[in-house]
C-alpha cells in the first residue's frame, strides 16, 4: 500500500483552481521533491496531505486513511514553510510536548541527537521567540523529526537556513527516507531536487513531470 495516494485530487480557493485532478502515489522510503513556479500547487498539495486543507474533489489517503483523520494524523509529520512555535516554551519543551502528544515515551536521546545535528544543543533551554528566522526554522525541523512518522511532509525547509543548516537538513531527510519514511519536500532549491531520486514538477495545478529532474525541467523552472 502506498504511504501517500492521491486520486483525481482537486483544490479550489474560491474561483482559483490550485490543483486540478492530480493522481499520484508515494511509497515507503521514497524521497520526493515537489518543484514548480510560485502558485503551481506544491504547498497546497503538502497542506492537503497534512490535513490542514480540505479537498474540493477527489481523494487523498495516508496509508489508506483519508488525510486529516485521526489514523492519518498518527502517521504524518509536517514542517511548514513558516515555523509555528509557542513563545513561552523552550526548544526542549517543544520537543517533549510534541513527542508526548504522539505517545513517544523515550524521546530524550532522539531530541539530543537532533539538537546536536542542527546546532541547537547550546540553545535547548532558550525560548524560540528570541531566535532569528533560521534558528526558528531549525527548531521547527527538530520538533517535526523528534517522533517517528510514516510520511514526512516538508514545505520550503531551506528558507532562512545557513549552509551548515541546509547540509544538516539534507542529511536528516535522507536518513529518514533510508529508514522507510516517505519524505515529500516542496522546494525551489533545484540543486536539492536534482539530488533526490524522484522529482514531481508542477505547473498551474497539474503534474507536468515525474521522475529524476532533467536538465530540460531545470531549464524550464529557471525560466
Amino acid at each position, binding site marked *: 500500500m502506498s504511504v501517500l495516494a492521491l486520486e483525481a485530487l482537486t483544490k479550489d480557493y474560491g*474561483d482559483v483552481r490550485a490543483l486540478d485532478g492530480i493522481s499520484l502515489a508515494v511509497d515507503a522510503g521514497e524521497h520526493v521533491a515537489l518543484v514548480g513556479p510560485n502558485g503551481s500547487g506544491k504547498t497546497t498539495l503538502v497542506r492537503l496531505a*497534512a*490535513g*490542514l*486543507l*480540505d479537498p474540493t474533489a477527489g481523494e487523498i489517503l495516508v496509508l489508506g486513511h483519508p488525510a*486529516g483523520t*485521526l*489514523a492519518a*494524523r*498518527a502517521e*504524518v509529520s*509536517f514542517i*511548514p514553510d*513558516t515555523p*509555528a*512555535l*509557542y513563545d*513561552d*516554551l523552550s526548544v526542549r*519543551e517543544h520537543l517533549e*510536548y*510534541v513527542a*508526548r*502528544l*504522539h*505517545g*513517544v*515515551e523515550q524521546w530524550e536521546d532522539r531530541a539530543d541527537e537532533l539538537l546536536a545535528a542542527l546546532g541547537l544543543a547550546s540553545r535547548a533551554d532558550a525560548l524560540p521567540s528570541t531566535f532569528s528566522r533560521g534558528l526558528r526554522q531549525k527548531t521547527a525541523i527538530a*520538533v517535526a523529526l523528534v517522533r517517528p512518522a510514516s510520511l514526512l511532509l516538508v514545505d520550503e525547509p531551506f528558507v532562512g537556513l545557513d549552509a551548515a543548516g541546509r547540509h544538516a537538513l539534507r542529511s536528516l531527510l535522507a536518513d529518514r527516507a533510508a529508514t522507510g519514511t516517505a519524505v515529500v519536500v516542496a522546494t525551489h532549491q533545484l540543486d536539492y531536487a536534482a539530488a533526490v531520486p524522484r522529482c514531481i514538477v508542477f505547473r498551474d495545478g497539474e503534474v507536468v513531470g515525474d521522475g529524476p529532474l532533467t536538465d530540460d525541467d531545470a531549464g524550464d523552472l529557471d525560466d
Partner: protein
Amino acid sequence: MTATRRDALPALRRARLRRRTAQLDLFEVFYQVYLTALLSGAAVLVLSDMVGDKPVTGSQLEAVRQHGPAAVGVLIGFAVLLGCRSGGHGGPLALEPPDVLHLLLAPLDRTEVLRRPALGKLRSGAGAGLAAGAGIGVVASHRLPGAAPPWIVAGALAGLVTGLVCVGAALVVSGRRVGRRAATAIGFAALAWPIADLVAGRTTSPFTAAGEVGMFPLGAPKPLAYLVLGIPALLAAWGLAAIGGLSLEAASRRAALVSELRFAATVRDLRAVLLLRRQLAQEGPRRRPWIRLGPGSGRLLAVWKRDVQGVLRWPAARILRALALMAAAGVALHGMWSGTAALLLVAGTAVWLVALEAVEGFAQERDHPDATARLPLDGRSLLARHLPASTAVLLLVMPAALAGALATGATPIAAALAVTAAVPAAACAIVGAVVTTTRGAHLPGTGFMADLAPEFSGFSLVFREAIPPALATAGLIPFVAAHHAATTGGHPVAAAAQSGVAVLILAAAALSVLSTWKLT
C-alpha cells in the same frame, strides 16, 4: 488516548502558565486594573447622568410594553446572526498557530482538545452578556417603572441569553462546517423572526419570548417563555459536542490572522485591525465591480475615479454593514430626540465606523507612503483629493439613517433635519476617520502627548482614542440644536442649519490641524 498523550496537554499548560507568571509585571497589572476601574466608573456616572431620571410618559411606557420584548428579541436574533457569521468563518475559537500545527494535527480527539477553549469562549460570552445586560438594566431602571434590582436581574438574564446564543451558534456552525452562505442565511432568518414580531406586535419567536423574560419588571411573562431560556444551554451543549468537527483550513487561517489582529489591537492600530478583520471575514473586494467604469483621462479626476472604482468593488457584506450602521445611527438619533441623550454617542460612533469604510481610498494611499512619495504630486494635495469621494459615499448611505429613524417612529421633520445636517455630519465623520487612519499605531513615548508624565499616559491614551468618534459625534450637534429648538419653541431646521455651519468650521479646523502632521 495513552497516558502520555493525555498528560501532555496539562503539562504544556502548566509549563506555559509558570513562564507567563514569571514574566508578569505586577505593577503593570495593578495599574491596568486601576485605570479600567476608574474609567468604567466614570463612564457609568456620565452615562447615568446623560440618560437622566425622567420617567417615560404613559404612551412611551405603553410602547415599551408592546414592543420591548420583540426589541430585546431582535438584539438576541442579531447575536445569533453574528454567531452564525463568525462560525461560518471558522470562529469563534481563535487558536494559536502552533496549537493548530501541533495539537490539532496530533492523533488526539479534537473534541476533547477543543473543549477547554470552547468552554472559555462560552464563559466569556456569558460573562460579557451578563455584565452588559446588568448595565442596561441599571440604565432602564432610571426611566422605567420598578426598582433597580429587578431590572438588573432582567437585563443580566437577557444579556446572558444573548451572549450564550451568540457563542453557541458560532460553535455549532463551525463544528458542523455549515457553509458561509448557509450560515448567513440562518442568521438572517433568526434576526428576521423577532423583527416580524416587532412589526406585528406579537410573540411568535423564541427570541421575543426570551425578551419577555428580559422585561419581566413590567409584567410577568407567559410561563412558556421561561422554557425558551433552555435554548442557549442546548445550543452551548450542541456546540461543545460538535466543535471537534472544526475545519482546520479555517482554523489555521484564523490562527494566523487573529495573532496579528491581537497585536494590532494592542498597539491600537485601528487601520490594521480593520484590514485584518476584513481578511478574517474573507471580505475581499469584488473581482467584478458592480458597474464597470469606462476609461478616463486627465489628472484632475483621476483620484475621484480611483475612489469610485474602489467603492464599486465593495462586497455586498460591506454595503449592508454600512447601511445597517447608518440605520442604527438613525434609530439612536431618534432615541436621543425622545429623551436619552447618551444615544448621541452611539449614533456618532456608528457614523464614524461607516466613515472608516468610506475613507478606504485615502487609507490605502496612507498605507503606501513610498508609492505616494514617488508621484509627481504634493502628497497632502493627493490625500486631500480623496476626501470628496469619501464624503460622497457617506452621504450616499445616509438615507439609511433617516429610514432607521422613521421606522422607529420619528416625525416627518426628521427628513428636513436629515437634509440640513447631512453634509456637516458627513464632514466631521470623515475627518474623524481620517484622524484614525493617519495616526497609525500607538507606540509608547510617541505622539503629541509624549512629553506628559508617565502617570498621565492612561488618560492621554483614552483622549487619543476618543478624538475620532468624538469628532463624528460633534458632527451630529445640529440634531441636538434642533431638539433644543423644538422643546423651547424655536424652529428646529433653522437651528440645525445654524449649528451646521459651526460644525463645518470645526471640521475644517480639524482638517487644517491634520494637514500639519507628518506624512510618513
